[in-house]
């Protein structure tokens, strides 16, 4: 079973994403900010990370840059999941090492489409 770490400070978003991911047969873990997410990844690298941008403590792009510098940190497929929709922001996320990018609001079809872009389903 593939694992996906959901990193988002909104419990509602985590709950919605978890339901969709579990239907797609993922084992799901949650983190509420970039620091919690890094701690999780240092103990166990997930196959996929669904990543919010704007979060307290550590934002998504900062987390992503640090993740990619960790041992094994290039392995997880990282999909941004954020309300940031400006093309410049999307390019910034891709340059930081994101594999895909999902603009909120999203639904199950969009998440599945993004997971299949990254070869995860």
């Amino acid at each position, binding site marked *: 079973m593939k694992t996906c770490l959901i990193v988002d400070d909104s419990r509602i978003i985590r709950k919605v994403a978890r339901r969709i991911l579990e239907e797609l047969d993922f084992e799901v873990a949650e983190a509420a900010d970039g620091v919690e997410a890094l701690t999780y990844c240092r103990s166990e690298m997930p196959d996929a990370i669904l990543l919010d941008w704007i979060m307290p403590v550590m934002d998504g792009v900062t987390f992503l840059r640090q993740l990619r510098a960790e041992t094994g940190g290039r392995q997880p497929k990282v999909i941004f999941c954020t309300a940031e*929709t400006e093309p410049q922001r999307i390019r910034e996320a*891709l340059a930081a090492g994101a594999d*895909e990018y999902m603009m909120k609001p999203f*639904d199950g*079809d*969009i998440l599945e489409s*993004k997971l299949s872009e990254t070869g995860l389903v």
Partner: protein
Amino acid sequence: MSNFASGHVEHLAAVLKAVSGFVLSPDKAYLIEPRLAPIARKFGMNSADAVLTKLRTAPTEELIWAVAEAMSVTETTFFRDRLPFQLFREEVAPALAARRPGGKLKVWCAGVATGQEAYSVAMIGLALPNVNLEILATDFSQRCLEKAAAGVYTQFEVQRGLPVRLLVDHFEKNDELWRANARLRQAINWRKVNLMGDFRGLGQFDVIFCRNVLPYFDGDTRKATLEKLAAVLAPDGFLFLGATETAMDSPAFRPTPGRRGLYARDPEFRQAA
């Protein structure tokens, strides 16, 4: 159970079959009310039933087309089903282009609805070295063609099937909408073409995409349409059908083994004069 006067639905079905080839099966009957209510408003009538009455008793060309367009299926996505586009990018386009002067390939996207398929093909063409695509995109619906040619999509639409790198490379954001950039739009010629008519005047194509169109036709219309498509396809050309379709209705095409949805012209098939 029908909310419409007796015989109205049967008459609508006959009109649609004649105009667009669309088969109004009983499981699609629920579409009539919501699709025709806006037509009623546009033509100053008070209900879908009134539209059907007018269609039977005093139809105008304008009303017939408005109804046929409203009843058509336009749901689609970028790179729908993925596999055919991968086959086109990795095998079909490079192999055919190598045999053509200047790598020039004529591609016809038939029944493009809101245009995502044509833009998908165009994005592949712009990224392939030594391949020069000339793309014709057609639909029977003027309304769809206008939306397709404008190239404007919602945030939901651009997130279905379109990898984000292609989105930022080929689209510009205007407010909450995304528009295909000028280079991508200029890669496609748009034209109103009804597959029910005679389209030999379009010339000869190297590749035809006719995906998720034929299932809405009945068996005889599918067969006739496949044979007309064969007549405008180069002898070494290819036809892409939708994921759930086959070309078994006609001897004009044969499947390519191991490549679902991809059909070649059958050299044994001779076009009736």
